[in-house]
């Protein structure tokens, strides 16, 4: 898997001469030659360590043939290897016997039983009887090393995959080996549990049942599991996953090794959110995000009550028809959680049926949709191999965790220089070559200084750092990838949009990766769910429409009467939730959602939709890669796919969208725009294809040793798993014009001077927020932390408060009591409040503090 020049060498494996890439690890080279060498510690996505000794083979050398670990030796010309000699067999059998010596005989009650590399190897190589008659090593049975992971030390075979993952991939060694010899054990620090957002990966790669995931513990036996491959939509990275179920109940999600995207890794949110789909039968309140909406609801006498589809469609039709009669009277918000096909259907519905241009998949917390579409797009791979990456975004580990993993690997290896616009906390900060501190309101000024080689007034940016950054960016930004998003939801979007636009014009050779967070937001925009956008990443310069915040304004003023709400999460994500509530209170709302949502308190009609793992289709990740999502379960009750709902509602309003099924929608998308929906849905292109590029798609065969539990194609009858290279030419895209930077309209705003006596609000994001994906999973919901006010230690000292103290925070419109937390990654004079979190009393503190008309929000502390 090296990037070196692909010269080959000849090696002899078991007497057969084969060609192998020069410098390849022997264990990989042998596998390419069809010779599988057993292993435990080796994992293809981590540096080899050669400790389990299972892969010992005989290598000819100057002192004759010696036993060498195949995972640690790189092939060289003329190397001769024997993997089958008696000596090799005895050594490998010996290692296996040693591993089993202290290993408990609790396979029948072990989660790994049936998919355990140790068990499998024993069946293949083991002697069948034990010579070990001693007392086995005993430890207290499973201990909780983190909120999601349990460790059974008796089962551990000390392969160090988990500890290496923590240090090498996650970049935070929260667990490490402790002790020595046969008492060595994996251990977290006494002060800090293993609460990494990547902890579940250690369970996935554990070759025995030592690490188990709390949510999956005793949930199913491997042989009862059915599996499909799909794409995770917990964020916009689009990690490839295997979704497993037993008896029509989702049981587990595993990361699939997709070369261009996730390398097999997942974040814990993506891995453990599956309970939100089918595990909350007890929840019935439509305002509770845990609740699945299983049947249509209409409001009668102030109450949402069950209705037939016919009744609900009629009611929804009435609301929308009435509102659409007034120009500008209706619009739609949401849709970032839909499939491309669902988004396409609603995009068509809004334009063709409601004749409205007021539509927005984002909640005012992202970037201007035209800007996103106009920026030259980079891929994740390009970012992870760029000479220089510039981040103008929030904490990627919290927002797009696997993008963080890919980027961290690039930066930590020294291949990639990182320039950070440091608005708030970032897990990449320590690795950055240049850190440009930007307080709320300062990003555009610093970008201007960078672009124009001037010294900015106000921001505390070091001139030397700016000069270094300019050197790294070069004359035209060749080899540079900008990762751009909204770090601070409390800052007017025009600030960062101005900065991005300036840099995009200044560095024409640079490419951009939009750090938009929500599941299929990129696909929703590509399908036209934003003003002026058209399906197939098209753009119509002749029209204009309201984005989400403008629609909320229009609803609040009465100018817009009705709202089609596509999916939940609006009140949880919009920074000024109080304003949104005021808008919804005046609006007639038709909601289409699979989950309960607080906004349904204002809905006239609720139409139940299928959600992830219940629907097939395509989604598009932040780099523009279209990949398939696959249904594993039937939707509950009478929920329909969004394609069906949009079609039926259109019919109710007297129009035919011509979308009889998801496949038909995909076909229409591809036929009319060239957007590769149908190609991806129906081909073996498991790695997906990037819009606008022809691409060869290949997949290494599944190695059950790398990901125990992940089953290969033949065992699940899924041709898509592994195998052949597929070439898809999808360069033809977009029937409408493509947006350009000149089409981008950015509001001119004036940044108020930095008030030395106040604190400027920084509203960043956390992975575990109050969204459906988190609260619907009891394991994840327990990880949500209550809202705090984070401050730099200098401000803590200045204000005379300590972490944990409760202070009254006063914003322009109101005050709220919050406990204080320390965060030295925030600049002095900046106060951090996380979006989407609630106080211990369940209040949305940010909604109280926000002022959606302000460019930056100033707050003051009143200590008690």
């Amino acid at each position: 898997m090296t990037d070196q020049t692909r010269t080959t060498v000849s090696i002899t494996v078991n007497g057969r001469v084969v060609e192998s890439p020069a410098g390849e690890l022997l264990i990989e080279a042998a596998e390419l030659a069809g010779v599988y060498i057993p292993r435990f510690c080796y994992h293809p996505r981590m540096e080899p360590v050669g400790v389990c000794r299972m892969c010992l083979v005989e290598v000819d050398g100057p002192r004759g043939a010696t036993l060498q670990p195949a995972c640690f030796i790189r092939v060289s010309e003329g190397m001769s290897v024997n993997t089958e000699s008696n000596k090799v067999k005895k050594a490998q059998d010996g290692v296996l016997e040693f591993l089993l010596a202290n290993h408990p005989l609790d396979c029948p009650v072990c989660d790994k039983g049936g998919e355990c590399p140790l068990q499998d190897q024993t069946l293949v190589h083991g002697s069948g009887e034990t010579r070990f008659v001693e007392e086995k090593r005993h430890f207290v049975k499973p201990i909780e090393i983190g909120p999601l992971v349990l460790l059974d030390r008796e089962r551990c075979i000390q392969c160090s995959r988990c500890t290496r993952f923590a240090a090498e991939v996650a970049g935070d060694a929260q667990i490490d080996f402790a002790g020595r010899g046969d008492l060595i054990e994996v251990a977290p620090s006494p002060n800090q549990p293993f609460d990494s957002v990547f902890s579940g990966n250690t369970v996935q790669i554990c070759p025995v049942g030592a690490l188990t995931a709390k949510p999956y513990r005793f949930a199913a036996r491997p042989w009862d599991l059915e599996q499909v491959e799909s794409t995770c939509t917990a964020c916009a990275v689009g990690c490839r996953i295997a979704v497993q179920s037993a008896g029509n109940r989702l049981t587990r999600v595993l990361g699939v090794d997709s070369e261009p995207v996730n390398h097999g890794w997942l974040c814990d949110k993506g891995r453990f959110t599956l309970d939100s789909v089918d595990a909350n039968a007890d929840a019935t309140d439509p305002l509770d995000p845990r609740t699945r909406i299983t049947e249509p609801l209409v409001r009668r006498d102030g109450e949402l009550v069950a209705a037939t589809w016919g009744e609900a469609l009629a009611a929804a039709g009435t609301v929308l028809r009435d509102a659409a009669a007034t120009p500008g009277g209706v619009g739609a918000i949401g849709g970032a959680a839909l499939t491309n096909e669902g988004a396409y259907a609603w995009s068509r519905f809004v334009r063709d049926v409601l004749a409205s241009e007021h539509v927005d998949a984002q909640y005012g917390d992202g970037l201007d949709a035209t800007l996103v579409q106009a920026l030259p797009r980079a891929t994740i791979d390009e970012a992870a191999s760029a000479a220089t990456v510039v981040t103008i975004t929030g904490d990627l580990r919290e927002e797009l965790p696997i993008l963080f993993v890919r980027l961290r690997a690039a930066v930590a290896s020294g291949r990639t220089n990182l320039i950070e616009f440091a608005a708030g906390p970032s897990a990449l900060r320590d690795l950055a070559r240049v850190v440009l501190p930007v307080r709320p309101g300062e990003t555009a000024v610093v970008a201007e200084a960078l672009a124009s080689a001037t010294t900015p007034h106000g921001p505390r940016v070091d001139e030397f750092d700016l000069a270094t950054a300019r050197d790294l960016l070069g004359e035209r930004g060749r080899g540079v990838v900008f990762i751009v998003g909204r770090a601070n939801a409390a800052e007017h979007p025009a600030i960062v949009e101005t900065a991005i636009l300036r840099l995009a014009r200044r560095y024409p050779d640079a490419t951009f990766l939009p750090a938009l967070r929500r599941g299929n937001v990129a696909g929703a925009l590509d399908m036209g769910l934003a003003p002026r956008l058209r399906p197939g990443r098209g753009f119509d310069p002749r029209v204009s429409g309201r984005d989400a915040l403008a629609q909320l304004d229009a609803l609040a003023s009465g100018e817009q009467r009705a709202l089609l709400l596509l999916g939940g999460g609006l009140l949880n994500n919009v920074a000024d939730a109080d304003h949104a509530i005021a808008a919804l209170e005046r609006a007639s709302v038709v909601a289409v959602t699979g989950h309960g949502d607080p906004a349904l308190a204002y809905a006239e009609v609720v139409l139940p939709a299928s959600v992830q793992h219940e629907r097939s289709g395509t989604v598009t990740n932040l780099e523009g890669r279209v990949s398939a999502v696959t249904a594993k379960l039937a939707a509950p009750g009478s929920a329909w796919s969004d394609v069906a709902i949009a079609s039926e509602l259109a019919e109710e309003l007297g129009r035919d969208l011509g979308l009889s099924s998801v496949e038909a929608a995909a076909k229409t998308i591809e036929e009319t725009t060239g957007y590769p929906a149908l190609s991806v849905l129906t081909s073996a292109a498991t790695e997906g294809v990037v819009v606008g590029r022809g691409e060869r798609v290949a997949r290494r065969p599944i190695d059950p040793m790398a990901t125990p539990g992940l089953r290969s194609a033949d065992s699940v009858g899924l041709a898509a798993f592994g195998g052949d290279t597929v070439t898809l030419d999808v360069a033809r895209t977009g029937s409408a014009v493509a947006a350009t930077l000149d089409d981008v309209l950015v509001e001119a705003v004036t940044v108020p001077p930095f008030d030395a006596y106040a604190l400027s609000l920084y509203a960043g994001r956390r992975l575990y927020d109050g969204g459906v994906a988190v609260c619907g999973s009891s394991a994840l919901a327990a990880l949500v932390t209550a809202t705090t006010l984070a401050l730099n230690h200098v401000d803590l000292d200045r204000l005379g408060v300590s972490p944990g103290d409760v202070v009254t925070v006063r914003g322009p419109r109101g005050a709220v009591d919050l406990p204080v937390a320390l965060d030295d990654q925030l600049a002095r004079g900046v106060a951090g409040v996380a979006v989407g979190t609630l106080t211990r009393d369940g209040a949305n503190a940010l909604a109280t503090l926000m002022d959606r008309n302000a460019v930056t929000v100033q707050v003051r502390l009143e200590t008690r």
Partner: protein
Amino acid sequence: MATLDAPRIVTSRAAYADSHTLARYLDTGGYQGLRQALTMFPEQVAAEVDAASLLGRGGAGFPAGRKWSMLRKSPVSYLVVNGDESEPATFKDHFLVERDPHQLVEGVIIAAYALQVTQAFIFLRGEFALGLERVQQAVNEAYEHGALGRGIFGSSFSLDIVVHPGAGAYICGEETALIEALEGKRGFPRIKPPYFPAVTGLYGEPTVVNNVETMSNLPWIVQHGGAAFAALGAGRSTGTRLFALAGRVRNPGVFEIEMVKNTFRDLIFDPRLGGGIIDDRRVKAIIPGGVSAPWFGPELLDLPLGQDEVAERGSMLGSGSIVVMDETSCVVRAAWRITKFFSRESCGQCTPCREGSGWLERILYRLEHGGGRLEDVDLLLDLSDNIAPGLTWPPQQTTICVLGPSIPSSIHAAISMFRDDFYEHVEHGGCPHD
């Protein structure tokens, strides 16, 4: 009778109670070797060491001069002194660091000069509290005296020495584990290749690792010339060597004697040395070079104390420790205790060593304390074979470092030489010596 007319090279100050002080050191020719070295080119100093054929005194017995010459072509970044003496029954470096710390420091400075290294580390076993204090004191005094720091003795050569305490782990005597420990990590040995210290050592840079006794020889070699050193001993085993004699002898201790000119019998029985066996009993077995070495029976007592002479008979002089067992000693108990040691000290990286050592120890425990089975004896050998395939000498290994194949040495030797003792334990239901 032993031949004891060779000069005392590293123990010349042993008779003085204040041998560790700078005053005594200077009175007895201290730092003259360094002064002389500084008048020579570094290459000349290295050439003298090469001429001396000084074999490394740590255990592996690789010629120090050759180790250096391999490196002189490309610059060396660090010199690391291995003072983590932990091989059971080895206590010669302990003697040197407590009794003659300045000699060690002077040797280090000379080596650093020869290698043109400006940063050296003396890694000392953490349990040597007094030794650590004495070497630190000597380093402090050497700075004060102008023998360390910038412009040593007015020359253009500068050197910094850091005394680094270990913390109790036998494996850190293995040079790559020692480097890991010096980098602040667990003492996990590195895989060779590619992690040869000379190529990829401390912080990934070329590093020379030499033993305390090796370093302590350098002041004498520089002052008297490599040829004078090479004139002592015979064959590849030149000079004198410290032997740590322990076990069932009347007079255990550290003895500096000329190599090859003396035999095991001389060392054990000469009244000026070991003084014979307690109660004049008979030798049952000796462990000639640390517990990693295969044992010898009494029939090899007349073997000369030379590196090649011992190697030819299937063992090694190793760390220079010799343990004597007599007819009262239980070889099963000895093998059990040695295996227990390896089990406790296995770093835990490699499966065969981590799991194998503990398994072997438990079998031996049963044999010694009751519960042994006849088939255990062959099981011991077969499990040993899975750690050191073929049970050959020098051993082959299924592990990263040589701790693994060291485990079976005692077991294999004990069973080969005294198989009946094991069966006796089985029949007796435990140790018949108890």
